[in-house]
């Protein structure tokens, strides 16, 4: 040991410094790895200590949005770890709630939160509640009511409700034709053919997309045909 120290002392100063630095860095890396292992084990506990969104809203004095962004990163990482199989999604909704309380206009958080709640957690009512909260804060955003309609259409297969939400989405200022098309499809699927025709007609009259106009025309024709069949009349082709 003594000879090793003596040999080291004989080394040039820059090498001594370099070796010392590397040794210290090594110790730092090993310590950090140890800390990370412990943190990973207690990751579930960590989420319990995230304060509620309401507290954070007061405590972040003017910097709410940036704290919401930071929590958003944590939410995405938390979901990523779930996808890797590290843990379940027990604290996911709490994180999304905190993000949306801090920044009620954070549309992506509502959207992503509702997707995870409905698809991964199988909690459609919770997904819809989150989206409804989003609509209260962002009444002009079409994506949120559209997503509720989507949940009703695909997951609950409640076409009448889906159509109602798609129609709400279609009335939003920046709604695309997409929303109106879905509203009409849902009405048709639910058997409400008059409602469906009205929505398709609205789309036909207001869209600037020629392909969409053709589609609307075709769908109006189909609905009318079905209506005639229901009424016992003959289909158009046979006339």
């Amino acid at each position: 040991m003594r000879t090793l120290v003596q040999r080291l002392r004989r080394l040039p100063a820059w090498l001594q410094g370099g070796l010392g630095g590397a040794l210290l860095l090594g110790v730092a890396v090993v310590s950090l790895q140890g800390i990370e292992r412990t943190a990973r084990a207690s990751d579930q506990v960590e989420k319990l200590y995230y304060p509620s969104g309401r507290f954070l809203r007061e405590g972040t004095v003017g910097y709410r949005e940036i704290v919401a962004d930071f929590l958003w990163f944590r939410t995405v990482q938390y979901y990523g770890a779930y996808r890797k199989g590290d843990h379940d999604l027990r604290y996911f909704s709490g994180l999304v709630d905190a993000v949306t309380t801090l920044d009620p206009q954070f549309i992506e958080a509502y959207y992503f939160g509702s997707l995870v709640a409905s698809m991964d957690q199988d909690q459609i009512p919770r997904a819809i509640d989150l989206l409804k909260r989003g609509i209260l804060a962002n009444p002009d955003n079409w994506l949120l009511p559209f997503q509720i309609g989507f949940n009703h259409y695909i997951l609950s297969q409640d076409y009448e409700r889906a159509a109602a939400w798609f129609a709400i989405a279609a009335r939003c200022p920046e709604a695309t034709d997409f929303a109106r098309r879905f509203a009409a499809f849902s009405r048709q699927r639910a058997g409400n053919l008059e409602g469906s025709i009205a929505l398709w007609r609205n789309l036909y009259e207001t869209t600037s997309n020629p392909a969409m106009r053709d589609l609307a025309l075709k769908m109006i024709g189909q609905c009318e045909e079905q209506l005639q069949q229901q009424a016992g009349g003959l289909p158009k082709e046979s006339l």
Partner: protein
Amino acid sequence: MLNQGKAVAMNTFRETVRDRIFYIVGIFGLILIGSSAVLSPLTIGAQGKIVADVGLSSMSLFGLLVVLLVGSSMLRKELEKRTLTTILTKPITRGQYLCGKFCGLTVTLLCMLLVMSLVFLVIMLVCRVTPHPRFLAAFYLTFLELTLINAAVVLFSTFVSPTLAAVFTLCLFVIGHLSESVMNFGLVMGSAWQAQISKIVYYLIPNLEVFNIRGAVVHGQPVAFSHLILATLYCLVYVLLFMLLASVIFARKELR
């Protein structure tokens, strides 16, 4: 009379530039580039929002840091170096001297914010986020907020040590952003006198949320022109009040 104040202001500006305060702009740029480039895979469709949030918040935060660090020690430095006593032998009043100091730091803040705004706009364009003219309103209101805080730090530094002046200013900043909550708290407490006291506190302390339109701007909400005008007036009133109070206190201060 204006010239003396102008000379002090120019000198303060040069002094802060010599203190390499603009290094902060470099750190700001690095944070912005980091947030836009490194964190973009984590944003899930919110990259534009996050770059804008980080940019606007960092501008305000770094501005606050400059005010606290530079503003709080501005007077003490000159007292310790005895330059203050030399300056005051010239035909300049103490009030003019204080105003000059305040204006000098305000000009520094303005230059810093302008450079940071340019960096911010360039990074937004690089990230393919279209900057809306509303962002100019956010820059302007951030400048107003920092000007008000600057006046507060000048006031506090006339009668307490630099550390205490920085702490007091930070407290004012926090309370200023929570003043609405203070009033709401008083209103829900139930008793009439508590509601009255909280109302008085609310109107006495500057409501700094007036200058915080960052969230609205990032989410594309409109900002009324009248809001900008009234916020300017609100800021001017408090700056005048703080500077008048600071001049009165400083005029009575015994300089050794």
